[in-house]
C-alpha cells in the first residue's frame, strides 16, 4: 500500500510501456530476466542497431520458437546462435518468445539503393507478397522483413539458396523461381526494397 500510493499515474504508465512484459511495477519477472540477456547482441528491447545482427522485437511467438529449435537442432546455419540456443529449455524459449512478440519492431536505419529498391518492390509483389504481406511488414510466417538488417536477410537467403539451412517448401519454390527469372540481382533488389522500408 505504502508503495502504491507513492506511484503516480504517469509513473505507472511509464512502467507499462518500458517494461512491456516485465510488467509489475517495482517487480521483475523471469521473462524479462531471460530476454534482457539477449540485448548485448540484439539491442535494447530487441531492437538492433546493426549493422548485421537482426532485431528480434516483434518476432511472432511461433516463429521465434521454431527458429530457436532449428538452431538447437543445427537445421539452420549459424555462427553463434546454435551455441546460445542450446542453453535454454522449451519453457524458457516460450517465455522469451512471448516477451519479444509484444515488443514493437522498429525498422533499421540503413543505406539502400533507391533504384534497385524500386525494382525490388515489383519483384516482392510478384514473388513474396503472398506470404510476406504488406511489403514484408506483416510478421506471420517469418519475422518482419521490412526494415530488418540487410546483411542478416542476405545471409539467411544465401543459406537457403545454398542448401545450408532448411527451407520451407513454398519458400524454396518461390525463391528458385525468382532466381531463375531474375538471377541473384533480383534477390538483391528485393533486399534493397526491404531495407528501404524505414517507416
Amino acid at each position, binding site marked *: *500500500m*505504502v*508503495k502504491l500510493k*507513492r*506511484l503516480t499515474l504517469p*509513473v505507472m504508465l*511509464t*512502467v507499462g510501456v*518500458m*517494461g512491456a512484459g*516485465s510488467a*509489475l*511495477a*517495482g*517487480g*521483475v*519477472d*523471469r521473462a*524479462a*530476466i*531471460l530476454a*534482457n*540477456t*539477449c*540485448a*548485448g*547482441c*540484439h*539491442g*535494447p528491447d530487441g531492437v*538492433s*542497431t*546493426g*549493422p*548485421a*545482427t537482426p532485431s528480434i522485437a516483434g518476432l511472432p511467438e511461433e516463429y521465434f520458437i521454431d527458429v530457436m529449435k532449428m538452431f538447437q537442432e543445427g537445421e539452420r*546455419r549459424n*555462427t*553463434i546462435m546454435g*551455441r*546460445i540456443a*542450446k*542453453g*535454454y529449455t522449451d519453457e*524458457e524459449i516460450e517465455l522469451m518468445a512471448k516477451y519479444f512478440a509484444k515488443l514493437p519492431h522498429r525498422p533499421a536505419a540503413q543505406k539502400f539503393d533507391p533504384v534497385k529498391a524500386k525494382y525490388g518492390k515489383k519483384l516482392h509483389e510478384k514473388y513474396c507478397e503472398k506470404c510476406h504481406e504488406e511489403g514484408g511488414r506483416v510478421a506471420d510466417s517469418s519475422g518482419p522483413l521490412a526494415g530488418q*538488417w540487410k*546483411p542478416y536477410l542476405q*545471409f539467411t537467403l544465401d543459406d537457403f539458396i545454398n542448401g545450408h539451412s532448411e527451407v520451407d517448401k513454398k519458400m524454396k519454390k518461390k525463391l528458385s523461381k525468382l532466381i531463375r527469372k531474375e538471377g541473384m540481382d533480383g534477390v538483391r533488389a528485393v533486399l534493397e526494397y526491404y531495407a528501404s522500408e524505414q517507416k
Partner: protein
Amino acid sequence: MNMNRRGFIKTSIAGAVGAALYGSHALAAHHGGKKRVVVVGGGIGGATTAKYIKKYDPSIDVTLIEPNPHYYTCFMSNEVLGGHRQMDSIRFDYEGLKKKGIRVVQDTVTDIDAAGQIVRTASGKTYQYDRCVVSPGVDFKYEAIPGYSKAVAESSIPHAWKAGPQTEMLRKQLEAMPDGGTFVMVPPPNPFRCPPGPYERVSQIASYFKEHKPNCKIVILDPKNKFSKFGLFMDGWKRHYGYGTDKSMITWIPADKGGKVIKIDPDTKTVHAEAGTFKADVLNIIPPQKAGAIAFKTGLTKGDWCPVDHMTFESTLKKNIHVVGDSSIASPLPKSGYAANSEAKICAAAIVSLLNGKKMPEPSWVNTCYSIIAPGDGISVAMVYAYENGKIIKVKGSGGLTGKYDPELRKREEMYAHSWFNNITADVFG
C-alpha cells in the same frame, strides 16, 4: 508489506543519523522517502545497473558517481591499435542515462561507510543509500613487475588495459615504430579482465604490421602456458601471420619456455625474462590485476577480488553493497564486458526486488566474447549460465567456441562482432 515498512523505517533512521552526522548534504540526499541507490563507477557494470534499476522501477532514485565525463570501452580498443577504428567510436558519455532520470555525478568516491550507508566523494559531498552498487573495474599490481610502475605506464610503457589516453599512447608508438622493429607484449596471469584480449591485441597489431610494416616482429612473454581461444588464435596466426614457420611475425613464449618476466628496464624498454633479454621498440605490459581501489578501502575484498552472493551480487562481506563486473568473483562467468552487462541486469533485478519486498525471479546470464584475428576473420566464445544450489553454473550442452575455419562464417562473425559492439554500448549508455 512488512518488509516494505521495515525497510522504510530503517531508511528513515539511517537518514536521520546521516543528517545529524554529515549536515545538510545527507539531508539533501534524502529524497522524500524515495528509495535510493548509489552506483559507484560508470563502466559497463555500473552504467548497466543504474539503467536497469530505473527501467525496472522508475520510482527508485538512482545516482551514478563516476570521475570521468566519458567512458572509453576497453572492448574494440584493440581495433584502434590495429588502425581499423577511431578513438571517438569507443568513447561514450552519460547523456543517455541522464535522460532516463539517473542523476550522474562527476566526482570521485573516496569512502563508503557501509554501516552508515553513506558514500563520500572527493568534493566533500555525501550520498545516503538504501543499496549501493560498486563497480570499479580492475586495478593493476604494477609492483609485481620490477621496474614497472604507474608513472612508467603513464609516460612511456602503456598497459592500455583501460582504454582512453593509454590506447592513444600505444597507437602513436606503433605508428612511429620503424619497419623491422620489435613489439613486445607481456600479458597478465589469470584471472584478468578480458581473457582473449591480449591475444586479440597481438592479432590486431600483426594485421597493422602485415599491411604497413611487414618486417616488424612481435614477441609475447607470457606467464601462462595456455590462454582463451587458444586453438583458434594459433590457427588464425598460422593462416594470417606465418605462425610456426621461419618467417613467423609472432613469437609466443609461454611460461614453461621462459616467458615469465623477471624485471624490466623502462629507459631502454628491455625486458629480462627467464628465456633471456628482449629489447623492444614498443613495449606493452599488462600487469597482474585486482579489484579497483575503492573495493579494498570499503572492505569488500577477499584476496584480490570481491566475494558476492550469486543471486543478488550483494557482497558477502558488507551488507547493502553489491559488486558487479570485473571486481566481483562471479566465476564461472568471466571478467568480460558482456558478463559485466549480464551481471548488472541481475543485480538491478535483485535490488529492485529487495527494495520492493518482492521475490527475485530465477536469474540467467549470457556471455559472448568476440575477437577479430584479422579483417574479415572473427571468432567467438559464448555460454549460457544458470543459478543452481546458490552458485552460477554453466548450462550443460550450451556455449563453446567458433567451429572449424569457414571463410564465409568468419566474415559474418566479424560483422556480428561489430553489431555486438553497437548493441551492447546502446544497451549500456543509450
